[in-house]
């Protein structure tokens, strides 16, 4: 009897994944590797939610989801795992993702963490994963993930989307260039557009997430020769497509060359401080800088009402008032939650 139940469940499993395991590079053995695989998805916004969806359907055994945000109505246009009920309830994205996966594929274990990925916790998350998938919305966290993955020798797949464009790169520590070989220094705080200031199409997000998932699957089934080498970049609106040759590792790279993990050691990351007696948090950039406030005004005007003077720029985002000062610091009023403040800073100032 027991044997028969097992046989039935195996048959069901074969049926569930039949189209995938019939694919030449997967096969029953590859499917079994996917089932045994542990993927860490850092950030469960647009990229992350699409990726979790695909990975769960593909039968990846364990997916750890770390995200500090809550589902909002403006997410639903591209964050395919969430629905109106999640937005109405303001469910944490990690929890909403776990619930959605339970309905999609109950064989997959999702470990949700409503948390900010920081220099303190990132290694613990990364150490338990076979592959890390980037679903973050800011450079600072990517440098941090890169530090942790290079240090621990865990491959990760970078992905980013904005407007109609997308980018992806697979990083295998010790073999390929790392994220910091490619981008040695972060763009200046406040200099980059973000999805909240420039908008983003679901089509570009879904394309990047799909590429990331394919790379994760190659890594899990062990087909490293098929991995994408170098940077993939495209624009779904203007139809540009770029496949940069695999850049060689930079021997002077502070991260993979010299093994100085500056983001992990929190030497250059932004800092938060709650302000005594106020429902407010201050976020400061990790390095001293001089912001072009006029430029920031132009960027933020797309998001809603902006006021400014010689010393500050202020915008309103839902219940939060963000005041940005000339040295890149921001005071975020309407919260005492450091993670919420960091998230708003990343989205509207950009890190």
């Amino acid at each position, binding site marked *: 009897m027991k044997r028969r139940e097992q046989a039935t469940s195996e048959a069901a499993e074969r049926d569930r994944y039949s189209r995938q395991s019939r694919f030449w590079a997967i096969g029953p053995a590859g499917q079994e590797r996917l089932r045994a695989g542990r993927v860490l998805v850092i950030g469960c916004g647009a990229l992350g939610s699409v990726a979790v969806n695909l990975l769960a359907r593909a039968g990846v055994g364990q997916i750890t989801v770390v995200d500090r945000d809550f589902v909002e109505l403006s997410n639903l246009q591209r964050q395919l795992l969430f629905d109106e009920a999640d937005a109405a309830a303001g469910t944490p994205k990690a929890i909403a993702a776990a619930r959605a996966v339970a309905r999609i594929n109950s064989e997959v274990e999702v470990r949700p963490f409503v948390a900010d990925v920081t220099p303190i916790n990132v290694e613990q998350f990364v150490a338990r994963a076979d592959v890390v998938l980037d679903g973050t919305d800011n450079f600072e966290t990517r440098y941090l993930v890169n530090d942790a993955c290079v240090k621990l020798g865990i491959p990760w797949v970078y992905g980013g989307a904005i407007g109609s464009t997308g980018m992806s790169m697979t990083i295998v520590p010790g073999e390929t260039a790392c994220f910091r070989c490619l981008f040695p220094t972060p763009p200046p705080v406040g200099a980059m557009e973000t999805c909240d200031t420039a908008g983003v199409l679901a089509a570009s997000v879904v394309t990047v997430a799909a590429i990331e998932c394919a790379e994760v699957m190659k890594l899990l089934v062990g087909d490293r020769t098929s991995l994408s080498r170098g940077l993939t970049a495209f624009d779904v609106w203007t139809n540009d497509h770029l496949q940069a040759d695999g850049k060689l590792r930079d021997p002077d790279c502070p991260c993979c060359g010299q093994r100085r993990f500056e983001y992990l050691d929190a030497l250059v990351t932004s800092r938060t401080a709650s*302000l*005594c*007696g*106020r429902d*407010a948090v*201050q976020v400061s950039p990790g390095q001293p800088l001089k912001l072009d406030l006029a430029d920031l005004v132009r960027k933020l005007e797309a998001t809603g009402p902006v006021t400014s*003077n*010689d*010393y*500050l720029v*202020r915008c309103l985002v839902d219940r939060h008032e963000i*005041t940005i*000062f*000339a*040295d*890149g*610091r921001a*005071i975020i*009023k309407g919260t005492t939650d450091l993670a919420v403040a960091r998230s708003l800073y990343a989205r509207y100032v950009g890190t």
Partner: protein
Amino acid sequence: MIYLDNAATSFPKPPAVAESIVDFLEHSAGNPGRSGHALAIAAQAVVAATRSQLAALFGVPDPARIVFALNATDALNTALWGLLRPGDRVVTTSIEHNAVARPLHAMAERGIEVTRVACAADGTLNLDDLDRALRSGPVRLVAMCHASNVCGTILPVREAAQRAHEHGALFLLDAAQTAGVLLIDVIEMGIDLLAFPGHKALLGPTGTGGLYVGPSVRLTPMRQGGTGTRSAEEQQPDELPEALEAGTPNTVGIAGLGAALGYLQQRGQPAIRAHEVALTTRLIDGLMDIPGLRIHGTGDPARQVATVSVSLEGWEPVDVAAALDSSFGIAVRSGLHCAPLAHRTLGTFPRGTVRLSPGCFTTDDDVDQALAALRKLARTAA
């Protein structure tokens, strides 16, 4: 950077502070009073010397009655929890820092009666109001600050202590904002318990502070543990300072504090006070000319320490502080300054104020630059 946040912690420290810390770590860092070897004795000597310097500073005849603490908050907790018992009544004021207000709030929930005398909107205390509170029933303790950490207003310590004693109460002074800048003589002023930080106007490192325990006070230790004395006994020894100093003390910090006290002695407390009165005068005079700017407190440099709280029309205090720092490199503190009661008294709750607190290394030019920056902000609508 122009540092105007000395009320939070003083900066810079005299160079001798860092030098003595390095020297101590390199040459004297044994465990004081625990062993007979040279390093232990050297550490013991540093601790004893700093204790004696503190005793001399506060007019304490017996240095053993000075116990080291982590900071003023730690000293205040040692005093309040060690002294008060359910049924006791304590009289305090409405401009206290949370270091006094929060322990008393916690104790009020454990059967200790707390009577709070309201101060005026400029932070001053009317002694008649104190009298009324003292007359309303038996009192075990009067606990108050020497000067407000928000607006700098100095309270009438001598008179308050005298009234406390007339009603059979002990007198506890929180000297967080004054130790090192105003003269404090525990005997002459009638102070039974004096809590002070080492890292503010005493110019020492953070992690240092102390409590003077007068001869008429017996505190029950909140912590028990090793003291290096009477080790055979399970009971915590009664003798001061050991009774209240269980565990290895912050010898490194105490070494730094000793050097800071040396600097204070050399420069002279009256000279430092005169310097700070001059800075406060310059600051207040300049502030009064800024349209839309309001000074909280007495506005009288003779009646306050060098801590000046202001509000600027059209600006939230938190934004003023951020703008001063980001555009002018001026460090001040905004908000509630861990003293919500004081801000309620001043009428500045919940937004708080912008606090400018010069120190003994602040220059006239620093003050002028801060004034110029505030003038610019006042001309700009937030």
